[in-house]
């Protein structure tokens, strides 16, 4: 039975990776938010499955927390923000998606290689997925680098945090509860502040293009 659950976790991990790639190649802001929500759902399922396999009840709590935060609250906030900023239907011009994806694949290989020796040492049942978690982190990082609009950058940041959360769950069945609560609080406050920021940037520049934010340079 736990063998099947383990396969289920592996499948979810692969899905997470897939979603990270999909985000990398997604042009529409609205779809990005949907993808982020899906990532949250996958994360919840994976955490709960991990809790079931490992008999760690606190993982259910953290799955519940993730559900509330990453499936409902943050996507809801993001929807509100893009509604109020009127960028719901914005499409970002991305240059050269295939190249981005190829670089992404290279990153995944790098992450797998990096995680391989570590994951062998982990006591967790889902240790194989550590490499995937690291790959998700790197892909989100790359998404933040390649985006020039503010909202996609924020979503990249949130996806990065998702990857880290998954890494913590995969490697060690999650951090101690108090720490996890603290991290969740930081993320929540962070997204609120970013929301405030988006409005300030919009007010100042009449646009959410980060390329306006490249004036400060050392000549």
């Amino acid at each position: 039975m736990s063998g099947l659950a383990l396969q289920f976790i592996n499948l979810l991990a692969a899905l997470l990776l897939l979603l990270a790639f999909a985000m990398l190649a997604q042009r529409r802001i609205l779809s990005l938010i949907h993808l982020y929500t899906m990532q949250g759902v996958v994360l919840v399922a994976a955490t709960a499955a991990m809790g079931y396999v490992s008999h760690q009840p606190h993982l259910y709590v953290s799955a519940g927390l993730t559900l509330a935060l990453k499936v409902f609250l943050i996507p809801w906030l993001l929807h509100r923000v893009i509604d109020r900023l009127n960028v719901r239907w914005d499409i970002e011009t991305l240059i050269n998606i295939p190249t981005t994806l190829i670089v992404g694949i290279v990153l995944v290989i790098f992450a797998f290689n990096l995680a391989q020796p570590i994951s062998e040492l982990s006591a967790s049942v889902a240790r194989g997925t550590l490499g995937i978690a690291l790959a998700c982190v790197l892909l989100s990082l790359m998404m933040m680098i390649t985006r020039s609009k503010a909202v996609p950058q924020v979503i990249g940041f949130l996806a990065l945090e998702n990857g880290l959360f998954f890494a913590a769950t995969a490697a060690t069945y999650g951090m101690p509860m108090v720490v996890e609560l603290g991290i969740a609080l930081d993320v929540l406050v962070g997204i609120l502040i970013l929301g405030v920021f988006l409005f300030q940037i919009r007010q100042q520049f009449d646009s959410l293009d980060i390329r306006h934010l490249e004036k400060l340079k050392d000549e």
Partner: protein
Amino acid sequence: MSSVEPLLFLLGLPLAGALVLGLAGHRRFAPELNVAFSTGTFGAAAALTADVIASGPRFALQREFFIDPLNVFLVALTAFVALTTAIFSRPYMRVEQAHGKMTPRRLRLYHSMYQLFSFTMLLALTTNNMGFLWVATEAATLATVLLVSVYRTAASLEAAWKYFILCGVGIAQALFGTVLLYMAAERAGAGPEVALHWTELETIKASLDPRIMGLAFAFLFVGYGTKVGLVPVHNWLPDAHAEGPTPVSAVLSGLLLNVALYAVLRCKVLTDGALGTALAGQLMMFFGLLSVLVAAFFLSRQRDVKRMFAYSSIEHMGLITFAFGVGGAVATFAGLLHMTVHSLVKSAIFFAVGHAAQQAGTQTMSEIRGLIRSSPTVGWGLMIGSLAILGMPPFGVFASEFLILVTAMREQPWATPFLLVGLGVAFASVFQRVQPMVFGDSSFKPLPHQPALVPVFVHLGIALVLGLYVPPYLESWYREAARMVAG
């Protein structure tokens, strides 16, 4: 005196201050309230310090907090600089209000976040839990990011955005490192509840898996190193310092960088214990040295005065990181001393620079002239502060830099020329720019509020004293801390 009380005050006062000032931060008496809360915090820090000096390291609140000579000295320093900055910001913010740059709403945000920032700094220092260390460091970013953009100008928004994104991404790497640390600790047999406790990790550090710890340190170093402002992840630092209000620049340079470096230091101790090699030290030496050199050359190209001193902070942080990387009792001692004097002198400089920029109405150095005529105290403060930060004897910076150089010559001779070049270039470029700012003709009008320059001279005075004579209790305290770090 029980052990918990000062700690409760230490953490509770700024938190309460954040709440109270969040409600009343725009009132006329808010700056005084800010000072009062900071004074209370400093009092608690002093009591805690006296306590630890008298009776050694201690735990508090079910081992969630741990006070030892290393962090208590930083706690005292942090609370002190937070207090003097609060005193300085009282007239500074009134002037800003008179200039129309601060509205009541912004003032409320500023005061509340100032106290919250103090809280996160002290939490990061006193917590025994590496996970909480991460949470607090991230919270410190969150607290300051809105302060950097408080003027809502295009440049300040850009600086804050960069600060948030870069530090957020950096600190995320540190979280991954913390996860790996937790994993290593669990493998080494620590119970899940205590596996992130630094005291627990310290006792089992020899049995932590070296492969995991090597990778964990790489991530932790990148993560906290971003906050320290080490090259090449330093880009946020000059912008955030230059575009935020001056008190924020002062606490960023004086406190945040120290706390981030403290986090790196704690991780290094564990990594050294686990690896048994000098890998962590070598990494720190390399990036420290790189920061010194790069910052020194960037220093010579600055036009904005706060930006220039921000680069100077990068340079000094690089120097301290280098010293900790060299390791050993003497270098660590010198690093700790340098942390102290740098944070004192740099915040003093920012105080002086803040008033100078207010008088001139600009931060561009070529437009600030003849400070010594328009307001002699600001001028002298800037001049003496610059001399101190450049390592002129008899200030404390000279003593610590000298110690670092001597140790480097003995233990890492290859690094000496780089250090000398970096320090030399930094000296030339800063002095060349500060000199005309201080001397020369001036037509500036005096400020509407009397500037608070007592903190400047108190800081410089302490730095001077530390350069001439380190009091024995302070010295034994440094030695104790250095012994703990260097093993």
